[in-house]
């Protein structure tokens, strides 16, 4: 370890660390511009200079690039340092008058006048922001590995550009240069031939963007970031690796692979939730055509404090607060033709909630709700909706909307008011669609894996609609939440609790009780053809040798493992010597049933 002194405080650092690292470990802030922890330092901007008083050659050195040495005595705020820093700022200000970071720094350092002539007098460009620190160039060459940008020209013409000032084919469009630029001088669109595509943030319904490293959603378990391989430069080109350099915990590992984990379990609870159906199939509502027509889930994100707008409700089209908002219920639900005939169960309640949230955000706004019936069956549910109506938080209009279309910057919602028997038109700023709930995609594959039936809409089937609503027909598989049918939170929690206790009830015993309907082999008539073995889906049938007292093998017959047999009877129907019977469904029992029917 190396021991040095910074502003009179002793600090120990590992060999190879810089003065800046040492100062950071003491919690001292040294201003930097051209420095980024992931990029090898160049000491180009000279803003981070510190004074070496003793222990090395005395003088000013750039803290970001100068290695810490044993016995150094460093001053970060000495008169020499501050004088140099002010001079540097004045020079930078003359060169790059448009850089706000430089302006702020100059103000903080008490610079009011600049003795240096503004470069803008020659170029006429007062908005120049680039300070020629070269951080972006170093990043693109050494970290990203693309070398798409470089310094170009000499003297006053020097600038950061691509070869021949053309858009560069080697530019990946990653935008890292713009990200690290201390003064915000770079627009990657100048360099990249392909548009810089933002990665939509899935959790916010794509209303904002995210970085390749992200935490999928707040309260994720585990609440840790992950790397989106499809968009990560490291996985695309092998370059970058900035996160690995920066992470102080050394937690980044690029060699991790997705893996299949196999576990033996005694019970499975399916709780795969729901998705919102895409309402753009209903052209009359204009979803996908007008940016101000949003789904309820998008609205939910918009008004959320952790959402894309930090909870500020604005029209997606122009950023203004929506003064009139119309909520349309039953979009796709309770619709026999081109829709889902079932009620999505949660929309009446969340629409009432959204109306209240809307009033919280836009106090002078007007909310309308088009509904078919208000289905508020639940504890305190009806009171909640009544409150919204009584306190005039929203105007409830009973009827369907036939068309949403644009007029000027407004959306005209045309619908029927069936209570007054008139047609109504509302000029709205925003329209929120309560689209139908559908099962998660992939539920069909899941149902086949679990051997659980599903209904025509894809919801998993319970064993009995009234008496066994949590079980399925497959032993040990239970259902919870919206994979079974559209449900609100209390119902889902109740069903999940029931499923959990059913699962525990199954696995807490040392012995399993089961249905007695399993196959039995008549060993006296079985001729050992093993046709049955081929049709058994469970591998429950094996060969058994019948031996006499002396141990001589008399015959080889089929044997059914009672633990594995599920009692389907495929073996019984296949057996040519009629040597297998399924208990409860024996041939004589079924023949008796046939005879009884036809009597």
């Amino acid at each position, binding site marked *: 370890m190396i021991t040095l002194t910074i502003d009179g405080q002793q600090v120990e650092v590992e060999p190879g660390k810089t003065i800046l690292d040492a100062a950071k470990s003491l919690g001292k802030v040294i201003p930097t511009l051209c420095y980024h922890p992931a990029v090898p330092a160049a000491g180009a901007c000279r803003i981070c200079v510190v004074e070496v008083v003793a222990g090395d050659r005395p003088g000013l050195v750039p803290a970001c690039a100068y290695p810490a040495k044993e016995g150094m005595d460093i001053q970060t705020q000495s008169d020499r340092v501050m004088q140099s820093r002010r001079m540097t700022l004045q020079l930078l200000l003359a060169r790059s008058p448009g850089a706000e970071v430089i302006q702020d720094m100059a103000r903080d350092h008490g610079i009011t006048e600049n003795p240096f002539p503004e470069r803008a007098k020659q170029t006429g460009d007062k908005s120049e922001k680039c300070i020629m620190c070269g951080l972006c160039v170093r990043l693109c060459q050494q970290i990203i590995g693309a070398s798409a940008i470089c310094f170009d020209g000499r003297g006053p013409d020097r600038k950061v550009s691509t070869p021949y000032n053309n858009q560069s084919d080697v530019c990946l469009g990653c935008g890292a240069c713009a990200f690290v630029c201390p003064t915000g001088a770079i627009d990657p669109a100048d360099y990249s031939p392909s548009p810089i595509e933002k990665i939509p943030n899935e959790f916010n319904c794509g209303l904002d963007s995210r970085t390749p490293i992200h935490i999928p959603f707040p309260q994720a378990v585990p609440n840790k970031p992950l790397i989106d391989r499809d968009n990560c430069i490291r996985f695309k080109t092998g370059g970058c690796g900035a996160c690995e350099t920066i992470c102080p915990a050394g937690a980044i590992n690029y060699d991790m692979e997705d893996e299949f984990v196999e576990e033996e379990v005694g019970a499975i609870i399916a709780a795969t939730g729901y998705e919102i159906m895409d309402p753009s199939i209903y052209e009359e509502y204009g979803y996908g055509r007008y940016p101000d027509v949003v789904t309820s889930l998008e609205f939910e994100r918009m008004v959320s404090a952790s959402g894309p707008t930090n909870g500020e409700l604005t029209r997606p089209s122009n950023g203004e607060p929506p003064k009139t908002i119309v909520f349309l219920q039953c979009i796709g639900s309770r619709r026999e033709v081109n829709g889902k005939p079932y009620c999505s169960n949660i929309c009446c309640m969340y629409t009432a909630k959204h109306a209240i949230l809307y009033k919280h955000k836009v106090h002078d706004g007007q909310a309308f709700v088009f509904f078919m019936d208000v289905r508020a069956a639940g504890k305190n549910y009806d009171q909640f909706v009544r409150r919204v109506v009584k306190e005039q938080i929203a105007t409830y209009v009973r009827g369907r909307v036939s068309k949403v279309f644009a007029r000027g910057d407004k959306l005209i919602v045309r619908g029927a008011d069936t209570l007054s028997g008139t047609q109504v038109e509302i000029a709205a700023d925003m329209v929120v669609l309560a689209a139908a709930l559908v099962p998660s995609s992939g539920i069909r594959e899941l149902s086949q894996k679990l051997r659980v039936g599903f209904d025509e809409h894809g919801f998993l089937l319970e064993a009995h609609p009234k008496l066994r609503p949590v079980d399925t027909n497959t032993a040990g598989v239970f259902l919870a939440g919206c994979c079974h049918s559209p449900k609100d939170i209390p119902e889902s929690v109740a069903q999940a609790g029931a499923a959990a206790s059913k699962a525990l009830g199954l696995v807490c015993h040392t012995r399993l009780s089961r249905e007695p309907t399993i196959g039995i082999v008549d060993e006296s008539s079985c001729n050992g053809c093993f046709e049955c073995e081929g049709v058994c889906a469970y591998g429950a049938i094996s060969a058994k040798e019948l031996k006499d007292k002396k141990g001589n093998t008399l015959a080889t017959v089929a044997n059914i493992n009672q633990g594995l047999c599920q009692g389907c009877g*495929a073996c019984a*129907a296949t057996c040519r010597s009629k040597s297998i019977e399924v208990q409860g469904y024996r041939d004589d029992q079924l023949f008796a*049933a046939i005879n009884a029917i036809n009597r």
Partner: protein
Amino acid sequence: MIQKAKNETTDPSEWQPRIVAFLCNWCSYAGADLAGMSRLAYPAAIKIVRVPCSGRVDPMFVIKSFEQGADLVLVSGCHPGDCHYTSGNYHARRKLLAFRELMTFFGIDPRRFKISWVSAAEGAKWSNLVKEITDEVKALGPFETYSEILTGETGP
């Protein structure tokens, strides 16, 4: 609906067909159960024998049913791919379709033997299916070949 059902059974002298249906416990039987729970009406000509799986249905059951006076036999199971027992309905399909080819040899019109797939959610499909096959068997008329042999009205 009640009115309509009444009309269907007004004439007692009219011949009523007898249909024997072998339904798997998990899909078709549950589908028929759902039809009942949903109060869907369908002809009473059908008599159901519950089996654990359509794969349990031995062709002997079908012949026995005709011998005992059935006019039509139906075997119904889970949709292919959705068998509760993984593959029982595939075995049933293979075996029973082969069996149907042999039915003429037994002196039975193959049109009197039906195979269908009805899931536990398809109560309405079950109800419609029963209506359809009842109409079909009414058009075919009673199955008398075996009873004639048994009563000795016509010799072989």
